[in-house]
């Protein structure tokens, strides 16, 4: 099978689609990272399991307003960012929305950072460089009963 034009044919594994249990719609993600390439990479992985991008932000302040606007199912949040860092943004989002599912995604993966993020309300941590299979499993875990996985071929119907 040929890859879509402009896409790399060999570099992205496909996973069973993650759909919301409530309405069988794709899981909606808010992607927060000051690097446009990190956001694109995450978007590509998200699309590999049928997820969609509800919004993007390049700093913590914008992440808060974007979450208010989108109430995405999952937030993928970088830690080191200008304006407001990810852990503070996560804390503020969870304060306003206790059910928010926030996954910290950072290259700085030391224990203090992870513990601080979890204490502020983040649900999980993924270290960069992000492996598609790791992110998929973590999103699936964080969504819990709120998501079901189905073969990709059945997800787009």
């Amino acid at each position, binding site marked *: 099978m040929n890859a879509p034009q402009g896409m790399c044919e060999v570099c992205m594994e496909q996973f069973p689609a993650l759909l919301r249990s409530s309405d069988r719609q794709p899981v909606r993600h808010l992607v927060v990272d000051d690097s446009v*390439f990190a956001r694109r990479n995450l978007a590509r992985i998200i699309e590999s399991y049928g997820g969609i991008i509800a919004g993007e932000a390049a700093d913590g302040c914008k992440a808060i307003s974007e979450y208010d606007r989108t109430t995405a199912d999952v937030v993928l949040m970088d830690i080191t960012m200008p304006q407001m860092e990810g852990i503070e943004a996560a804390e503020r989002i969870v304060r306003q929305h206790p059910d928010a599912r926030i996954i910290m995604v950072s*290259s700085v993966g030391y224990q203090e950072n992870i513990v601080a993020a979890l204490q502020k309300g983040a649900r999980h941590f993924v270290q960069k460089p992000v492996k598609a299979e790791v992110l998929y499993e973590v999103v699936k875990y964080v969504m819990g009963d709120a998501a079901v996985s189905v073969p990709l071929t059945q997800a787009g119907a």
Partner: protein
Amino acid sequence: MWMELIQPFLSAADAVLSDALAGPVSVSEITMEEEAYRRRALAVMIEISGDIEGRVIFDVEEPVAAHFAAGLTGESEPPADPELLREATAELANLVIGNAVTALNDQGFRFKVHPPVHHSAEEGFRGSEDAEALVMDFSSATGSVHMNVVMRYNRRRRADATL
């Protein structure tokens, strides 16, 4: 610079660059320099503060940045826009330095990593009397990556910690 500070940067650069560039990467040269850093290609600087203070300059040849960018986005054609290539360089630097400081943290050092800043001047950021620059050159199939690291122990913070 002490070996305990150098090794995490070497290991992180080797692991991350091999993964990010999808091919073998080798260390072509490691030197200590007192002379001011002179920019070679696309460069970003990341500052570190805390128990260890300093900065890392990550200087990447354009084909390397383009190859990395294409891999991240999954597109067959690498971006030609210089701004996008600078962004790719910043993200590559983030990955290497984030992984290096994670390893240093495991050794007990506490610090904060600041967001990358693009460096466009031809030179600057000389090492100092007590902290000359560690220069590491890596070779890959698409080009070379140059890291210029200046780190020193924050004596005041270390002294405070022992009180």
